[in-house]
């Protein structure tokens, strides 16, 4: 649902960059999407095509780099990989977990003309 709003933000950032960096067409847009960013990748792809229509990224290829969730296990005192926010530690089974990664949502890079 709010993937549309996110695509609007992406379009705005691209347009600002086009002004600042002087390009006229975008060939590829690479995004970093964390497991806990709340983004549905298919909805993002759909929204991207709709929102970029008529923009300088109209024909751009969307590349999505998904990253796993990361948590800090208190008993183990180390970083572990988790698939869900509420997952137990894969090493000790503890739920005393602080999410430390996977909430990111950013434009990694643009390939432009």
């Amino acid at each position, binding site marked *: 649902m709010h993937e549309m709003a996110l695509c609007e*933000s992406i379009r705005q*950032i691209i347009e600002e960059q086009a002004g600042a960096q002087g390009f006229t067409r975008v060939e590829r847009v690479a995004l970093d999407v964390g497991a806990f960013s709340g983004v549905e990748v298919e909805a993002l792809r759909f929204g991207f095509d709709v929102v970029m229509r008529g923009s300088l990224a109209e024909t751009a290829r969307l590349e999505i780099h998904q990253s796993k969730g990361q948590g800090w296990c208190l008993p183990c005192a180390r970083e572990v990989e988790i698939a*869900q926010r509420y997952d137990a530690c894969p090493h000790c089974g503890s739920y005393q977990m602080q999410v430390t990664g996977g909430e990111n949502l950013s434009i990694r890079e643009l390939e432009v003309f």
Partner: protein
Amino acid sequence: MSQTRLIQLEADILGKNNGYAQANCAQFARDGMFVLNLVSSPGSGKTTLLCKTLEALKDTLDLAVIEGDQQTSADADRIRATGVPAIQVNTGKGCHLDAHMVGHAVESLKPAKGSVLLIENVGNLVCPAGFDLGEAHKVAILSVTEGEDKPLKYPDMFAASDLVLLNKVDLLPHLDFDIEEAEANVRRVNPRARVLRVSARSGEGMEAWMQWLKGGAMMASATLPATAPLAAE
């Protein structure tokens, strides 16, 4: 064919919203305001709970409300009927309030210094989680008719909320909702969250929620000078 080039960005896609949220937050701090963002699925009882809270507190606190809905001004009308100023923000196709909308709403609402601003977000357990409004806390409302699994199904929202109100507990005798399990599920996604059982209908548990609210309001306004000091000389 012209050559392509690479622009490395690392640009936060929510950066714009976060910028507006920080500006709102700074203004709220300057004005000693206590601001809450109420989030839930549709129909959990946000407006009912707000109306009851406003009725009880309007004589002791300065209150104001921002109502977010995709359509209609019905909820703001319900709030205004209590005598508390409210402004409706219709998000149209949008599924959440954003910090820019809230900034504008605050401009026209002009809440008093030291006041409590309650923002009822669009009924949606997904999207509002990612959009900070500049609030002190998100408060998630989960009604007991929705099922005890909701914190696990919508973990982002419950992880982002500092207080969870389990509403409509007056209905518990008629349901097989396991409230202990619901609380355990909240703790699994957010060990730091406070959980309170309330009924906006019967008034059960409302005292604890309002104590929490008054405590927050007192802390937020503590930075304001008690009376405007007269400039010396």
